[in-house]
């Protein structure tokens, strides 16, 4: 036979049918013994690695007698793994020539070592998830589907979890740079990976609360971002950093499950904090999860992929829909130009044409003078064209509004106000 070079090839052709074989008593000269082996291997009783070849070893001297049978037996695992200091390895080998039971076990454990995988476990391609799930749902349509608006959250939390799973213990302490735009100027703050995950847990908790699920905060806190986040950071201070992952992940799974059962009453549920209806709150949390996962990936130097075009479009659409209210907020704070015209609620108003290019793109008409007005093509006074990812970077507060103004024509004030309003959608 020509044995394939699979790891763990030490399986005799006799397979399982025969009782465990007793290896020949070993002497330094007996080489491979009589056993047929399916893959080229060293002497089965001679572990590869840190000991010199058997024939170079000194004959067991009086030191072998220092070890009793029990100790030698306890060394068999370490010996099979070539993990004994040299003196002990010699003593074990001397013992194997005298003790059939230990020799039998030694050979068995040696074969077991051949079954250990040499490399780290493989990283699972994060894109496989959506393909596998889609394939399943094609074959058996779900009776209780995950609502479309919860899809991005489901996918982004899975991506972040995959990133966290691949991280080493020390990377949980890596410094992550959080960036956002507070309405007037860019802000930054650094936090550890564990703290960023804690921040997500705390803010997702507002959605959990709206759905009647337990709040991850042991002590109630103001729904404002910083207050809730810092409250959760105090709570997690006693845990080891990687222990933050489990409660975060459990909550994300519970939220997706609850979303599927909340279909039909989503309009009535408003999530405190951002004040968004449930469906939009899920999109908002998906966006946050993506942004912070990318922040974490950058800090630990891992790749992180963007959402699928269909999901990206939902996220862009949410931001575009939030813009009129954001503009009105800025106007009330004196940060945006006053309204030019009065528009009745529901009537077409002066608009900015937001054209998003690339994956997940499309056209949006943003009413400029009142959140109650309807954006429309024939009252367009300005046109901004942006790549979808660039728009998201802007909405995440990761690029400055003035740097994002590529491809703008028309009313400069309207363009400026809309870009600033987009950036001010961002939070820590």
């Amino acid at each position, binding site marked *: *036979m*020509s*044995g*394939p070079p*699979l*790891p*763990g*090839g*030490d*399986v005799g*052709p006799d*397979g*399982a049918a025969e009782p*465990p074989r007793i290896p020949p008593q070993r002497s330094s000269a007996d080489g491979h013994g009589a056993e047929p082996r*399916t893959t080229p291997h060293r002497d089965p009783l001679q572990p590869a690695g*840190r000991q010199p070849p058997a024939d170079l070893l000194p004959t067991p001297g009086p030191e072998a007698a220092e070890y009793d049978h029990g100790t030698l037996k*306890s*060394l*068999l*695992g*370490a010996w*099979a*793994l070539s*993990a*004994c*200091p040299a003196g002990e390895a010699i003593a074990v080998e001397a013992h194997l020539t005298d003790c059939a039971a230990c020799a039998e076990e030694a050979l068995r*454990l040696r*074969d*077991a*070592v051949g*079954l*250990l*995988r040499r490399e*780290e*476990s*493989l990283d*699972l*391609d994060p894109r*496989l*998830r959506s*393909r*596998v*799930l889609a*394939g*399943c*749902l094609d*074959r*058996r349509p*779900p*009776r*209780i589907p*995950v609502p479309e608006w919860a899809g991005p959250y*489901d996918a982004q939390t*899975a991506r972040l*979890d995959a990133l966290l*799973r691949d991280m080493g213990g020390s990377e949980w302490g890596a410094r992550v740079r959080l960036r956002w735009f507070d309405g007037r100027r860019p802000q930054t703050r650094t936090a550890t990976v564990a703290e960023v995950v804690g921040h997500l847990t705390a803010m997702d908790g507002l959605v959990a609360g709206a759905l009647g699920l337990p709040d991850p905060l042991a002590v109630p806190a103001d729904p404002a971002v910083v207050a809730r986040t810092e409250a959760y950071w105090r709570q997690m201070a006693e845990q080891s950093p990687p222990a933050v992952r489990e409660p975060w992940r459990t909550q994300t*799974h519970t939220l*997706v*499950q609850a979303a*599927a059962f909340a279909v039909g009453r989503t309009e009535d549920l408003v999530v405190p904090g951002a004040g968004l209806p449930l469906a939009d709150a899920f999109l908002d949390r998906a966006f946050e999860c993506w942004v912070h996962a990318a922040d974490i990936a950058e800090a630990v130097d891992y790749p992180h992929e963007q959402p699928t075009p269909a999901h990206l479009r939902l996220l862009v659409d949410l931001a575009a829909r939030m813009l009129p209210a954001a503009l009105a907020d800025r106007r009330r704070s004196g940060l945006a130009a006053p309204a030019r015209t009065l528009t009745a609620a529901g009537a077409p108003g002066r608009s900015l044409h937001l054209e998003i290019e690339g994956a997940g793109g499309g056209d949006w008409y943003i009413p400029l003078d009142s959140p109650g007005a309807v954006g429309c093509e024939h009252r367009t006074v300005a046109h901004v064209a942006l790549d979808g990812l660039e728009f998201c970077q802007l909405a995440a507060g990761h690029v400055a509004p003035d740097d994002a103004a590529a491809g703008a024509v028309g009313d400069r004030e309207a363009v400026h106000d809309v870009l600033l309003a987009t950036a001010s959608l961002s939070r820590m």
Partner: protein
Amino acid sequence: MAHDTPPRWDRKMQQRLVRGEAAALGELYDRFASLVYGLAYRVLDEEGAASAVTREVFARVWEHPDAYRPKDGPLRSWLAALTRQEAVHSLRVRHEADGGPPEELEQRVRVASAAARADYIVTAMPYTLRAALELAHRGRRTYPEAARDLGVTDAEARRRLRLGLQLLSTATPLLPPGPADPAGPAGSTGPAGTAGPEVRS
């Protein structure tokens, strides 16, 4: 990380799958995809084939969630058995398509099954044993060095290495006889060795 989910989790998951909850399918994937893909890859040694087996395994569970019977053991073991069967089936199909000699196929199947079983045993064994094995095997530490890394006595390190290998060695004698290796549904067959040694230390 916990490697076996509690029986209650398994039962609940199955009920949710039977109910047709897509969210449960996502959770099932998140919990077990790396196990399924890893085992399939160990048998097939090829990413595309391992992905295809992963798709098939989850589709089978989603289509027939009641094929799993919680009283027969952990969901994790059942999925591992199903994965091995799918992967071995895929190996046979590929081998036959390539026109390889049948004797060689049986040999490959035995070797691949043992490797996959061993992988499963490693993932299912208590973390303390797995960590010791990894230090000695991939980390190339001697056992006194491993003991220091783990913060245990030398005797404890020896014990963990020996016990870990003893568990692993059960992968070989439990090999099913080659020709009878089932390519069909897993539910009924449930190879005796699938669960691997479920020990706690």
